[in-house]
Each structure stands twice: as C-alpha cells, then as structure tokens.
C-alpha cells in the first residue's frame, strides 16, 4: 500500500489524497443524511425509520455510557461514528481510506483530547481540574500527565494501525492474486468483508466508545 499521493497546493496548504478522500467521505455522509431525513412525516417512511433508529441507538448508547445528564454529546458522537464508518469502509468502493493516514486520525484524536480537557475543566472548575492530576497521591503527578497525553496517541495509533494494516494485507493479497488465473475475482471478497466491513465498523465503534468514556470520565 502506497502512501497518500500529493495532488497540489492551495494557499500553501498541501492537498493530498487523504484530504480529497476525506471530502468524498464527508460528501457521502452528508448526502446519506440528506436522503434519510428529507420530507419527514409524523408517520415515518422507510428512510425516516432508518434515521430515527440511528438517532435512538446513539441516544441509548450515550445515555448508558456517559449518563443521562450528558445527552448533549449524542449529536457529536453520531456524526463522528458516521464519518468514521464511511471512511473506514472506503476500501470497498476503491478509495484509499482517509483514516489510513496518521494526519486524519491524529486530528480526530486531538478533537477528543481537547474536548476531554475542556469539559473536565468546565465541570470540575479550576481547583478540581488541577486536583484531579494529584490523585490518588501527589507524587503521581508526572504519571498522570503522561497518561493524559498518551490518550490521543493511543486513540489515533489504534485506528491508524488497524486501517493501514488491513490495507497492506489487502494490497499484498491483490499483488499475489495478480499471477493467478483461476478466480482472482472471488477470493478477495471474504478478506474485504473482514478488513473493510467488520474491522472498519468495529474500529469506528471503538473510537467513538473510547471518546465517550474519556469525556465522561474527565467530567465526573
């Protein structure tokens, strides 16, 4: 699997394959949401039922993991999991997955990291926030700081490593199949099913779950 190609520059910003594929994934997610939620009625049609199920499932998940008082995070988490689900399964429709680039996953993990710090600060106040670094004992302060800084690293590396590892295995499989005469079409199907659909959806779920756990853990 090759690294993301560089397409050009706009105002000094480098436009790589990752950026373009992120736009495509965002467009797919936005069009999907638009198609599911246009002309909503009191008695729902098929599309509206799908949209309502998504929202209800996410609401229940947030209520269970974060608590009933933090329901305001449900829209963010639903959009996060939608974007991740679309971009992790991008290998099926022939795109290089944007999350197989460390820049994309680090950006997502930093969003979680800053949300963790900000909402921890907001709900505990200055004293409580600073005091939480001295627990359970004051001399554990460096360990606590390192542990806090390790969260975005482990979050981003987990997603990146899983997606890139899956992509490399698929690329190796395709290069091995290139010399094969019989059934080179059918063999990749189970591998695509595992590495793109199962692993991709599982990783997007796990990223969202861990974000929820970190944020709610910092708040209470």
């Amino acid at each position, binding site marked *: 699997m090759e690294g993301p190609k560089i397409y050009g520059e706009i105002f000094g910003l480098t436009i790589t394959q990752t950026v373009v594929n992120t736009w495509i994934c965002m467009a797919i997610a936005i069009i999907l949401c638009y198609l599911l939620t246009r002309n909503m009625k009191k008695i729902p049609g098929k599309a509206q039922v799908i949209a309502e199920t998504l929202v209800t499932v996410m609401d229940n998940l947030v209520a269970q993991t974060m608590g009933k008082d933090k329901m305001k995070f449900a829209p963010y988490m639903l959009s996060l999991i939608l974007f991740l689900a679309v971009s992790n399964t991008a290998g099926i429709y022939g795109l290089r997955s944007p999350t197989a680039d460390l820049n994309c996953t680090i950006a997502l993990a930093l969003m979680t990291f800053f949300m963790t710090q900000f909402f921890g600060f907001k709900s505990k106040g200055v004293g409580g926030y600073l005091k939480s670094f001295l627990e359970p004992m004051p001399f554990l302060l460096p360990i606590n700081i390192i542990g806090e800084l390790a969260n975005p690293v482990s979050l981003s*590396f*987990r997603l*990146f*490593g899983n997606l890139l590892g899956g992509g*490399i295995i698929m690329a190796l499989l395709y290069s091995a199949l290139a010399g094969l005469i019989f059934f080179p079409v059918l063999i990749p199907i189970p591998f695509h099913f595992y590495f793109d659909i199962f692993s991709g959806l*599982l990783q997007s779920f*796990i990223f969202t779950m861990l974000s929820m756990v970190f944020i709610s853990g910092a708040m209470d």
Partner: protein
Amino acid sequence: MIGDLNMVDFLLQFLSQFDGIDVIKAFSAIGAGTAMIAGVGPGIGQGFAAGKGAEAVGIRPDSQSDIVRTMLLGAAVAETTGIYGLIVALILLFANPFF
C-alpha cells in the same frame, strides 16, 4: 574464537565488507520482524477477554449485548500494544529514518 578474532569482532568485520546502507536495510528488516513479536501479548489478552466474555454470557444470557460491548472495548484497549509494535515495524520498513 574464529582465527584470532572473537565473535563480535568477527561479525563486525564480516559486516564491514558490505555497503553501509545494505547493512542498515538488512537489520531494519530483522527489527521489523522482531517488533511483531509484540503481537503475542494482545493475542493472549484478547483471548482471555473473549473467554471471560463467553463465560459471562453463559451465566447471564439476558445481558448479552452489554457483555459483548464491554468485551469489545476491553479487547480494543488490549490491542494497543500490538498496534504500537505494528507501527514500529511499518516505520522500519516504509518510513525508515536511517536511509
């Protein structure tokens, strides 16, 4: 002792007949393979988590969805060290800072 050299000196002299870059490439490949030994730990951890999850589902089949969710979360966290090993291996192979 090989000739009048000890083992380390012999190895260094053996390696010095190759180009420096080639030696670095060879040892990077060996290092990448060695780094993937880290995959053993997550394998054990995830197997343990899955076993305990199966046990818990056997005891309480009605709360299966909660158990599966917690198990997947724990398995994902246990996977982190293996992913670190994978990333070190990938850096050594594809983004090596030494050549």
